[in-house]
């Protein structure tokens, strides 16, 4: 069995993903490129005697050094040298799509063009002379319809044939015109006199083109003064000649090459008319109606994720409750075996705590896949852009931030819709400030305990508002400091609306769900067990527990445990916030999941498990002032996110560095703000 490595390149919205799905089916693997937040999708398929590995490169419009996606795509082609590169071209929009094609031709890998969405092109009245075009582009061209499953065999056949032939010499290449060609020749000559290895890997022509474009990465790689001097002189000469940057003139010439190739081979019998997409756009991007339509759809996303997700979530909770009871039953009643505690309170509670999110994740990604595949996502970004732009984020950042009100875990995963790394990291870092559903359980314990009924609404509202304001301020600060740099100017393609296919949506959901269970699951489980150890060991001697009822025994055990001790040790540090060791212990417990704060607090106050929350509220009222109550909520809102969130940040941001930054940053912020509120508040109260 022979192996073939295929790289799939193409513009965003060219139907690349559907073609990838078509080629590989469910045999896919999603990961991130090391250290960056960009997805790397790989899949396998078999055809005849070949095992074909397909790597889905990030969707790009060109191959410059200006964006991470483009760098990744071109480095893969140049450094890992796939056997075949397939350029997925939207056949209804050849000219723009072939711009990437010209740059692929320049890199000279064995190349195949997939003219995707061929059916749409036909309906648009486009007819191709593929034979002639294939001669001009010197590559096989296969018409495909990715979302309908047409053209798979033909494409695989073309891939195999092209891989067998390998790299061949080209006769048609993009010619940039006399003056530029002269400079390119000079640079090529200078290159051939220098480092052979670089030339061998990248080819002189491509290196020369990139050097003349003043491509940062290649300029740094070449690095030799003699060559760069030739380049500098050439650039200056051309600038004087064209009164423009050479790279812009070169882009111009590439389009010239494309229209030359298209003129003879493509017939367009129908003028572009006002189509259905334009009609829908008139509504959803309308100045007045755009925002309400957007908010309505966002409400639908939120509702389906959390309201609809609640039923399967409850089912899963019940299942894990049943499992815990069943496992617990293996030991005699009243047993104090630590093994039982590990199985029930550590492993089952830990796994259960992760798996219950699965329905949310699946539903959220169902909604996102629908929004993306239909083409609405681009419009949503368009509608929200002005507002989000002010805080240095992208229009699309709104969606993960909104999801953050339900739960940070799916929200952080949803940042995958953002292409720009800086935007994505900023959004990930501030998401925990959106007050999630788990924190609502803390507020609903505290607020009725300390505030009169007519104050409850405003207090709750103020907590949420503080979170939003802090998120906005932090995002802006991050963009002004560590994520400094030009805010991506808003330029976005509005692809025609399309009917999504169930197949691609199911694959999308399945991938996300699996990724979540596998990656986040292992980390979250590990940390849950650590927290269980902290809350369980060391155990108090038997004589300390004699004569205590169940609630008191739990209180003594927790106080005696490492977590309780850390709570005590922390007391001097959190005293200025108005907190005692009991709150401290509950705060540490809330690292596992924010709602654990409530159960930990009821343990340290020795509240019986069958008592309702009012008993605990009464004890809180007796021990703390309303100001402390407010400060507890404030601290829980801002401080260290739960371990599931941290695990998700690790997975999505690609480095523990960001996890530490998020954890420390938010905790310090929480400490500072709570300190000010408590100390200033005390003056008045």
């Amino acid at each position, binding site marked *: 069995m022979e192996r073939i490595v295929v790289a799939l390149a193409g513009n965003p919205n060219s139907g690349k993903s559907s073609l990838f799905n078509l080629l590989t089916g469910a045999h896919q693997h999603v990961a991130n490129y090391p250290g960056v937040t960009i997805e790397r999708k790989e899949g396998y398929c078999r055809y005849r005697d070949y095992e074909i590995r397909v790597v889905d490169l990030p969707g790009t419009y*060109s191959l410059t050094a*200006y964006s991470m996606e483009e760098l990744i795509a071109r480095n893969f082609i140049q450094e890992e040298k796939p056997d075949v590169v397939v350029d997925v071209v939207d056949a209804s929009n050849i000219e*723009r799509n072939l711009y990437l094609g010209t740059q692929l031709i320049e890199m000279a890998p064995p190349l195949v063009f997939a003219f995707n969405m061929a059916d749409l092109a036909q309906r648009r009245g486009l007819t191709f002379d593929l034979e002639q075009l294939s001669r001009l582009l010197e590559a096989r061209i296969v018409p495909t319809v990715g979302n309908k499953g047409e053209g798979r065999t033909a494409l695989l056949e073309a891939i195999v044939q092209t891989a067998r032939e390998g790299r061949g010499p080209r006769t048609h290449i993009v010619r940039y015109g006399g003056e530029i060609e002269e400079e390119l020749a000079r640079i090529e000559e200078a290159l051939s006199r220098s480092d052979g290895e670089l030339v061998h890997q990248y080819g002189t022509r491509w290196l020369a083109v990139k050097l003349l474009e*003043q491509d940062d990465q290649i300029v740094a790689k070449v690095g030799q003064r003699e060559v760069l001097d030739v380049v500098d002189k050439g650039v200056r000469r051309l600038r004087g000649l064209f009164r423009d940057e050479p790279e812009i003139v070169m882009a*111009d010439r590439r*389009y010239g090459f494309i229209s030359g190739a298209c003129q003879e081979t493509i017939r367009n019998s129908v003028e*572009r008319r006002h189509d259905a997409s*334009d009609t829908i756009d008139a509504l959803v991007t309308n100045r007045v109606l755009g925002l309400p339509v957007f908010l309505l759809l966002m409400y639908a996303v939120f509702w389906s994720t959390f309201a609809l997700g609640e039923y399967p979530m409850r089912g899963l909770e019940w299942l894990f409750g049943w499992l815990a009871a069943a496992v617990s039953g293996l030991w005699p009643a009243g047993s104090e075996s630590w093994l039982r505690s590990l199985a029930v309170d550590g492993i089952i509670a830990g796994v259960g705590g992760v798996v219950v999110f699965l329905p949310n994740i699946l539903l959220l990604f169902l909604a996102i896949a629908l929004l993306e595949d239909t083409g609405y996502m681009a419009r949503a970004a368009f509608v929200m852009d002005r507002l989000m732009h002010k805080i240095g984020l992208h229009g699309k950042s709104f969606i993960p931030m909104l999801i953050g009100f339900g739960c940070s875990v799916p929200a952080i995963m949803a940042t995958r819709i953002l292409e720009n790394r800086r935007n994505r990291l900023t959004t990930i870092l501030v998401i925990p400030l959106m007050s999630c559903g788990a924190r609502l359980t803390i507020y609903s314990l505290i607020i009725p305990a300390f505030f009169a009924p007519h104050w409850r609404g405003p207090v709750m509202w103020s907590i949420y508002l503080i979170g939003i304001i802090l998120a906005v301020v932090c995002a802006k600060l991050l963009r002004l400091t560590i994520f400094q740099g*030009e805010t991506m100017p808003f*330029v976005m393609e509005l692809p025609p609306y399309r009917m999504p296919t169930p197949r691609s949506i199911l694959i999308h959901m399945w991938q996300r769900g699996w990724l979540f269970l596998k990656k986040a699951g292992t980390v979250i489980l590990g940390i849950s067990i650590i927290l269980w150890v902290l809350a369980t060991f060391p155990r108090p001697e038997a004589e300390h527990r004699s004569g205590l009822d169940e609630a008191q025994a739990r209180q003594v055990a927790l106080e005696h445990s490492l977590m309780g001790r850390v709570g005590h040790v922390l007391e001097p540090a959190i005293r200025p916030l108005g907190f005692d060791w009991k709150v401290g212990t509950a705060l540490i417990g809330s690292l596992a999941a924010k709602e654990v704060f409530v159960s930990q607090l009821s343990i340290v106050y020795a509240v019986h498990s069958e008592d309702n929350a009012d008993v605990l509220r009464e004890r809180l009222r007796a021990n703390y002032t309303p100001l402390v109550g407010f400060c507890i909520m404030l601290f829980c809102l801002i401080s260290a996110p739960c371990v599931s969130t941290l695990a998700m940040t690790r997975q999505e941001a690609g480095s523990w560095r960001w996890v530490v930054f998020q954890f420390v940053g938010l905790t310090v912020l929480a400490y500072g703000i709570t300190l000010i509120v408590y100390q200033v508040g005390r003056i008045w109260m």
Partner: protein
Amino acid sequence: MVDKMVAAQSPIRPLSLIKTGAKARLVRVDAGRGLNNRLAALGFVRDAEITVVSNGHPGPFVVVIKDVKLALGRGVAHKIMVQ
């Protein structure tokens, strides 16, 4: 003198001033290299025909270029000079 008259007929101005439904021809993009390259890749090269689908006062701006519909921020539309 002749140059002046031609200029008066079709002055160079930013794309943001072109009305909904009107067409214009690209002259140059007054932006940094990054944006300039991104726009070039999307088809914003010299003499490209741009149709303004909606000049969404205020806010983003929708154009059709090379058969593709694109939304541009107003800042971007200010930097694209057309005729």
